[in-house]
């Protein structure tokens, strides 16, 4: 368990984390979501004692990180891909970390195998790709078999196979009862991995919620797009049947219908003999729901006119 109590961190004039309080529970994957510059990485550095908070208190398993006698057994963290000396081999890096806790070489070999780096264990890390560095960082995080795993943007630089592997790994770690805390600036990534969500912007807590809730909030606005040569007839049928159905004509033969499911529309059309050329549920995307939550807090927001495409909005905002 990780607990933050009114944590504030200033770097000079800049307020990186602003009175942040939350708890990360064991047994679930907790996503730490926010645009770049929201204070996610800073918060993670504070949790593992690399930086000291300006105010407030952070406890891991009930204690301050610096008071842990064997921290690698309590907390494993991947902060940045290159937390490794590039002149050293992956094996030597992990061995040096393991030796601080008296962890044996067998465990080093085990984690190298686990992340798929056994074949390049004795190659200099400087020759590694970003994805391989991420795998090495994950190996280092798991070295002490910790109860808490903290990962900052773990899928950065990984290939699709690696991303799928990380998602599975995180789920397994949580299923084993560990506290899993990972950051991302992509809601879509979180939707696939996390259960619980902590959303921050400008160093402040915006929401503590679950992926399910965000999805649910996103759904009411959802519409179904129907393409039919008998648009007026369908409109009339639905208006007769439904209470809260609202229909918007996009084109002469295209309707966006809200308040009724695609299944009901299809059945209604079939029973009246109305021909449908298209029947597509339009989901308000998770990214949109997330943007609604965060947009007031986004620090470096691009001008709305500069956003050519909804799917790019996050990238630009970041």
């Amino acid at each position, binding site marked *: 368990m990780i607990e933050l109590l009114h944590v504030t961190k200033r770097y000079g004039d800049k307020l990186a984390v602003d009175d942040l309080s939350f708890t990360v529970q064991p047994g679930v994957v907790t996503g730490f979501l926010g645009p770049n510059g929201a204070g996610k990485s800073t918060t993670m550095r504070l949790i593992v004692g690399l930086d000291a908070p300006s105010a407030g208190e952070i406890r891991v398993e009930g204690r301050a990180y610096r008071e842990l006698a064997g921290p690698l*057994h309590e*907390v494993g963290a991947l902060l940045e891909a290159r937390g490794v000396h590039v*002149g050293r081999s992956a094996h030597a890096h992990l061995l040096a*970390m393991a030796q601080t806790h*008296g962890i044996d070489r067998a465990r080093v070999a085990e984690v190298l195998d686990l992340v798929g780096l056994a074949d390049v264990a004795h190659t200099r890390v400087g020759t590694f790709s970003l994805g391989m560095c991420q795998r090495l960082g994950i190996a280092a995080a798991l070295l002490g078999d910790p109860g808490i795993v903290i990962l900052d943007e773990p899928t950065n630089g990984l290939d699709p196979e690696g991303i799928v592997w990380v998602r599975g790994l995180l789920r397994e770690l949580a299923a084993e009862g560990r506290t899993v805390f990972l950051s991302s600036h992509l809601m879509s990534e979180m939707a696939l991995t996390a259960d619980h969500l902590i959303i921050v912007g400008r160093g402040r807590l915006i929401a503590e919620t679950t992926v399910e809730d965000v999805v649910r909030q996103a759904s009411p606005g959802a519409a179904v797009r129907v393409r039919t040569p008998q648009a007026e007839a369908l409109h009339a049928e639905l208006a007769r049947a439904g209470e809260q159905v609202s229909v918007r004509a996009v084109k002469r033969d295209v309707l966006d219908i809200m308040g009724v499911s695609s299944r009901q529309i299809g059945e209604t059309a079939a029973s009246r003999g109305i021909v449908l050329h298209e029947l597509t549920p339009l989901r308000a995307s998770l990214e949109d729901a997330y943007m609604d939550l965060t947009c007031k807090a986004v620090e470096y927001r691009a001008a709305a006119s500069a956003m050519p495409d909804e799917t790019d909005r996050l990238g630009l905002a970041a």
Partner: protein
Amino acid sequence: MITMAAGRSSSRVGVVTPGRVLRSEWTKLSSLRSTYCSLLVAVVALGGLGMLFAAIQMSDWSRLELENPQLLAAERSHFSSIDAAVGGYRLAQLGLGVLGVLVVSGEYATGMIRSSLMAVPRRLSVLWGKLTVFCAVTFALMLWCALTAFFGVQAIVASHDVDRALGDPDALRVVVGTALYLTAIGALGVGLGALLRNTAAAISAFVAVMFVVPGVVALLPAGLSASISPYLPLNAGSAIATTAQFGGADRLAPWTGFGVFCAYTALVVGLAAWRLARSDA
């Protein structure tokens, strides 16, 4: 290959101890190519240059024996086979100072320091561990080189009857003192690396303090220069690595000078420790 994480029980045993930090630092030091390069420079310089120059000197003397016996006699009277043996320290000190800097600044440059401090959150252990391992390795290696150079040079210069025994006055002090001085130089490098956290800045500071400042001080009025000069790190520290007995005004006595040098090193290391413990990594 992509399998489950190991169950949660097998290796949940260890706590961080000073001894474990030492082992870890030994692994770190011995797994980097830069360590071997820098140490090779120091070993060749201290272990080899003395013998090379002594051999050149002796062949020159063999020529002078026939051509200019008076000059030879004058040279012989000034020659110290002890100083000749350890003279290579002048080059070795650069290699060791740079290695000392890299031992710490390399971690900051690559981000390794974050991994180090996450594993050992009682941060000073990391600095003491690094210093201990680095100083032990340097001292052992440099003592071996100094002894090798000493006996090698004595064998070479025996042909002209200027060889000395390790039991002769100053001989043992210079041999051991050279190794001590080079170790302290390396420790100064470690301190500068930890204090400045940047390779270029720390190496510049090292070169400036050791080799540039003496030249600048020499520009001062003679009286002022002479009273400052003995306390400069290079002059103070290297007094232990030579048989030359300078008058009290020019140079400090060997152990006094070395003590002054150690005080400078302790000051830098102390500031570095303060910064490490107090500030964000």
